[in-house]
């Protein structure tokens, strides 16, 4: 779920001069996550400390000069950069008072924007589509700038994405109604042109937002008809040559509801992989008014949070470090938000929710992705030093460590972290740490911190949706102990995974399985279950002299050569080893939906089906003998679970079982036993009726006019 918190006004917006582009040229990240750089379309640049809602510095250009692009902060040199009158690049420091006295250089072509990513050199994007690093440009300002774009091609939008120390500049252009996306990569410098292909009839995208996730750039663009499309670009250029225009495949990921009014503008910004903030589109249930800021979940197409914005909305929206910056009316508002990791488990209410989880949202928004980590690290470490003298690792430090350290160290650190982290933080951190551990394990074959995984599971803050790879990793590593614990703790394992695990368990030889270290409680249960058989055989007769003659007589009508023995004592030996049985019990107790499970069950091979069915039959017989009643165990499969699995298995493999000769005996036994049970329950039903009558007759106090009763006096 996502939440929009109460916002506050950062500053006023200057008088609106032209209708479309308004008072604010841009909002950029400042030197710290708490600072933003607001570039006024009039003549001033102001630095605000967001938490204090106060300006800490302000510069303006002389009358007659125009600021032509938003100012940015160069984190490497701790300098501000702005371009005035299209061609004059100005660079100054925090303590410079007068902009006129700052360094300036005039370049040979019109500059569109200066783009800056944290901890990297700012990039200058020219109107003609050429790109230069700021350093190299300032070294020789008058260097010739090549024309990349054709004459009437105009850049509509641009951004810079940084990941893995690699910068990518993206910009989109429009030429006679055709839209293209250029991807500029550095080292080696490549420029790839993509044609944005959308359905015919769609006008221009009105808003773009790019994030870097994994090794891909996710680009989201919004159309006026409310469609949000997503395109995925590889981070590193795969194509060798840049020749030709590649089509950019896209997929519709969200359809915003439209009101009756014709929309003119709007903006969207990606918050994290599942959430997108949209402004300018109507609230689905608030009627025609479109002055709403909404957070949508693209996975589930649900509106997660909304906030009404007073005054006129401009199609501008920025997002930095968990805060949305929205100019509306005559002010620029800062609205903190919070997006929790959304999983189906969370949506269905299966996952424990905390009210303020994810205080630091996972929004890898272009320009501050890297600063995020460092800055929060600073804050966190400050906080933790205040709390405990011995500074423990923060999540971010831990994640960094996981990437590099040895298995033993990682396990120790994770253990330490779990012990020290406060509960609320741990809930957030556990998933992240687990993800990191899994991804390291997947890439590094020698790295498998089982203890760390177990410890993380023990926190019970993990669920399948948070870390889906964990179970498959455990299967690959044949770590059945981890599997068992995961089965016990996860409540949202998909049926396909359940089946895969079942298959893995069944296909593992018993000998190998017995060496696995399993949860003792479950093993004891299996031991007792298999021993109860022999014990009841020895003592049962003498204990109360009871032997089930009714069932004996039940089967006497069948041919009696080898069926004379007690049908219940048929094959009462456990068909699988203790450990395998214990694991199968865990599988039986998982939650599932039979419709989803059935197709996956068909993947089992015939021998696997037969072994599993034999085991289920064994359990069923045992349970019918009431053996389990004597066994004290925390988790035991219930008889209805067993029967449900028998039914599913029979459904899934009906034809196979019908023809397979080795299954004949098994199915025959099952049928016989079930038939006897059905008879028994039918008889019990009859008895219930008579008992009910007896009970009712006891209750009737009203005896009418006459009765002869017996009383006793003492």
């Amino acid at each position, binding site marked *: 779920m996502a939440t929009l918190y109460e916002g506050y006004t950062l500053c006023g917006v200057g008088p609106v001069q032209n209708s479309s582009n308004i008072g604010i040229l841009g909002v950029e990240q400042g030197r710290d996550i708490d600072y933003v750089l607001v570039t006024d379309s009039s003549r001033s640049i102001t630095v605000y400390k967001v938490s204090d809602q106060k300006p800490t510095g302000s510069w303006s250009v002389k009358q007659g000069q125009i600021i032509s692009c938003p100012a940015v902060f160069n984190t490497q040199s701790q300098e501000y950069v702005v371009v005035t009158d299209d061609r004059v690049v100005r660079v100054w420091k925090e303590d410079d008072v007068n902009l006129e006295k700052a360094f300036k250089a005039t370049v040979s072509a019109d500059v569109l924007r200066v783009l800056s990513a944290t901890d990297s050199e700012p990039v200058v994007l020219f109107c003609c589509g050429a790109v230069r690093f700021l350093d190299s440009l300032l070294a020789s300002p008058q260097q010739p700038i090549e024309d990349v774009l054709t004459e009437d091609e105009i850049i509509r939008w641009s951004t810079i994405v940084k990941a893995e120390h690699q910068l990518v500049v993206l910009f989109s252009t429009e030429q006679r109604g055709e839209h293209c996306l250029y991807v500029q990569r550095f080292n080696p410098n490549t420029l790839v042109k993509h044609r944005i292909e959308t359905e015919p009839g769609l006008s221009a995208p009105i808003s773009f937002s790019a994030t870097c996730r994994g090794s891909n750039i996710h680009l989201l663009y919004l159309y006026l008809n409310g469609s949000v499309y997503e395109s995925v670009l590889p981070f590193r250029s795969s194509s060798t040559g840049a020749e030709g225009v590649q089509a950019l495949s896209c997929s519709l990921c969200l359809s915003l509801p439209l009101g009756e009014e014709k929309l003119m503008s709007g903006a969207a910004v990606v918050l994290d992989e599942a959430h997108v903030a949209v402004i300018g589109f109507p609230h689905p249930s608030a009627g025609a008014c479109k002055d709403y800021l909404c957070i949508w979940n693209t996975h589930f197409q649900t509106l997660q949070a909304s906030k009404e914005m007073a005054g006129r909305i401009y199609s501008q929206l920025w997002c930095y470090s968990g805060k949305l910056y929205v100019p509306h009316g005559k002010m620029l508002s800062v609205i903190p938000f919070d997006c929790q990791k959304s999983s189906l488990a969370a949506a269905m209410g299966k996952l424990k929710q905390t009210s303020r989880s994810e205080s630091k949202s996972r929004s890898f928004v272009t320009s501050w992705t890297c600063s995020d980590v460092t800055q929060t690290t600073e804050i966190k470490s400050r906080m933790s030093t205040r709390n405990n003298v011995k500074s423990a690792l923060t999540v971010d430090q831990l994640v960094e460590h996981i990437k590099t350290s040895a298995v033993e160290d990682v396990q120790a650190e994770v253990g330490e972290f779990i012990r020290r982290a406060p509960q609320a933080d741990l809930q957030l951190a556990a998933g992240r740490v687990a993800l990191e551990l899994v991804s390291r394990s997947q890439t590094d074959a020698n790295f498998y911190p089982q203890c760390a995984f177990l410890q993380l599971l023990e926190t019970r803050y993990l669920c399948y949706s948070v870390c889906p790879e964990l179970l498959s990793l455990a299967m690959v590593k044949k770590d059945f102990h981890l599997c068992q614990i995961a089965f016990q703790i996860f409540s949202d394992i998909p049926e396909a995974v359940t089946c895969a695990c079942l298959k893995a368990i069944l296909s593992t030889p018993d000998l190998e399985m017995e060496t696995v270290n399993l949860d003792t409680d479950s093993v004891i249960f299996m031991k007792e279950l298999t021993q109860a058989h022999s014990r009841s055989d020895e003592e049962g007769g003498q204990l109360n002299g009871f032997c089930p003659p009714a069932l004996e007589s039940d089967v006497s009508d069948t041919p009696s050569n080898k069926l004379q023995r007690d049908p219940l004592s048929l094959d009462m030996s456990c068909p699988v080893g203790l450990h395998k049985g214990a694991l199968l019990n865990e599988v039986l107790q998982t939650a599932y939906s039979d419709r989803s499970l059935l197709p996956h069950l068909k993947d089992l091979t015939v021998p696997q089906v037969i072994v599993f069915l034999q085991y289920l039959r064994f359990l069923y017989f045992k349970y019918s003998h009431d053996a389990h009643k004597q066994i004290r165990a925390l988790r035991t499969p219930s008889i209805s679970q067993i029967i449900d699995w028998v039914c599913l298995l029979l459904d899934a493999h009906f034809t196979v079982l019908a023809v397979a000769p080795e299954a004949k005996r098994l199915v025959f036994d099952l049928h016989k036993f079930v038939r006897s049970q059905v008879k028994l329950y039918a008889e019990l039903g009859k008895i219930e009726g008579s008992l009910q009558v007896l009970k009712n007759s006891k209750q009737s106090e009203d*005896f*009418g006019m006459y009765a*002869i009763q*017996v*009383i006793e006096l003492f």
Partner: protein
Amino acid sequence: MGEFKVHRVRFFDYMPSGIRALAFNQDTERMAVARMDGSVEVFHCSDRFFQEKIIPGREQCGIEGLSWVGERLFSAGLNGGITEYDLTNQKVKYTIDAYGGPIWTITGNQQGTHLAVGCEDGTVKLFEVNEDQIQFERNLDRQKSRIISLSWHPSGSKIAAGMMDMIQVFNVETGHSIHRMLADRGAGTSRSKECVVWSVVYLSDGTIITGDSVGMVKLWDDQTGTLIKSHNVTKCDVLALSVSQNEDSLVAGTSEGIVVQFQFVSMVLEKDDKEWVRTRTFRNHTHDIRAVAEITTAVVSGGMDAQLVVRPLLDKIEVRSAASALRKIHFPHRRLVSCARKSGLMLFQYPGHLELWRLGESEGKGTPGSSLFVKRNPEKLLQLKVKGEDHIRCSAVSPCGGWIVYSTASTLRLYRLHCDNNNISITKISKLPKVLSSANQLCFSSDSSHLFSASAQSSVHIASLSQSGCKFVGTLKPKSGSHQAIHLLAASEDGKWLASANSDHEVHIYNLQTQKAHCTVPVYSSAVTAMGIHPATNCLFMMHADQQMFEYSIEQKQYTDWSRTVQRKGLHRFWVERDTPCLNVMFNPQNPSHVILHDMYMLCIIDQSLPLPDDKTQFYNQLTLKSLTEEQRKSQSHAFKVCKTFKDILCVELMPDQSLVVVERPLEDIATQLPAPIKQKKFAT
């Protein structure tokens, strides 16, 4: 202790009759109650409201009013007659016609010289009360409408009469009307209906209080003839009013079944300007309240629901005791059921007829608490309708089941019952001895050979019974001079002794062989409600209205040691606080130490061999004992074994086969047979 087979009988459709009038005698503390069926009962207010006297009614009697004049009781009714009762012999003394049509009200003055009756023809008739009769004196000025209610001014000089739409005040001397006060009719649709002044009370300070059909209690000034104040009590009728002796409290009964109390209190503390203020409301009735009476410490009310409710006024009671509890009297304090023990027959006494039933039979045995299979259902053998208009006063079936006898106020009839298998035949014994013309109480000897008939002057006539008929044997007369009617008779099993109890609380014991009075049990202050002679020891066991019990050895003419022990140690608090009298005393021939008693709510077996409970022991201990082992029970049990399984008990009898017959009449069944009460709006209905 043991198991008992119990015949639970609920087919006795006894219906108590609605209460129509009440009259309280302050001096003797007796409450006279007139019922719809014309019967008049006298309750002793200071003896736990024991029903001392019952004068059975008659058809078409229709009593409308009751009045005490001194110790004499008069009634008047819609048949136009005024009746005086012979309370000693519990019968009507005489009836004279007032010649004014139906009489709606009768009231005597405080001086005890005159009776005034209000008639349908609009006259108030004054009767002079003479030594042995009453004599018509004169009419007051005749009015146009009927006289519904009357009240004397305590001085006896003025009389207020409630009529249709008005109240008249008469000067008794001149017979002329002094004032005419108009009662308002109700508003709206009821404006067309006449306002009936149902009840009027004339206070010594000249205030006249009326209750009318509009639901108002109004106060009038007799000097000016003006309305002083009116209280709207109900939407229905105010049917009855009664003022306390010292005129500081007034109760009004309404047709909704509520009683409203008004008190004459000063509005400002310690000032003398008093006003009548509505204070309390009592809701104990489901139907119309036809009569209320405020007695010294309680409000007594009765109405269509046939129960007499004694609601104590707690501000007038100094000590909380059993006497200060709310008391509802549902059933008569006499036995209406007699049992032919040897043949399993039961005789039910209704006002106008008798029913003879044979009990059913069971099969098999059952565990305590279970019902047995009824092999043969009970069977109604006989219904005997009374000849004439008088209602039955007493009846009995002989222990062998061969004789049935009943008596009304005027006749006594004896029948011989032949019962072989399914053929029932009954023959009336025609030539009865002259002395057996009427009886207050009837009883057969245990061998069914003799009939004892309690008659006037506390005497008992003995008649021998044989195939040939009934022959007078002799008369037993008490040595004392008491002439009060006998209400209980008890014959000993061996045929040697007969005990009689009368309304003066005297118990006389006669030797039947010599036909002489044997002795008299010392007179106890409370009335005898039940008694029986022990078959083995010939001790007379008596229960009194105040719940005390005595055992008197007839042969030794003294109380037994056990009785003395009981008196010395005292009875348990819970036993004494029960509010219905014990109505039967039985003995278990197989266990001589057992005495079986019952009242309306419980059945009790007293084991005289066990220690008596003191106030610290748990009295109702049957459930406790049930959970204990045999050994532990011995230390825990005491003499009183109370069984509360049954309720609304009319009669319990012990049959020779050790089974008990319990005749129940559930009050819910009675309630369903009552006429519908006034419809009242209730929430959520």
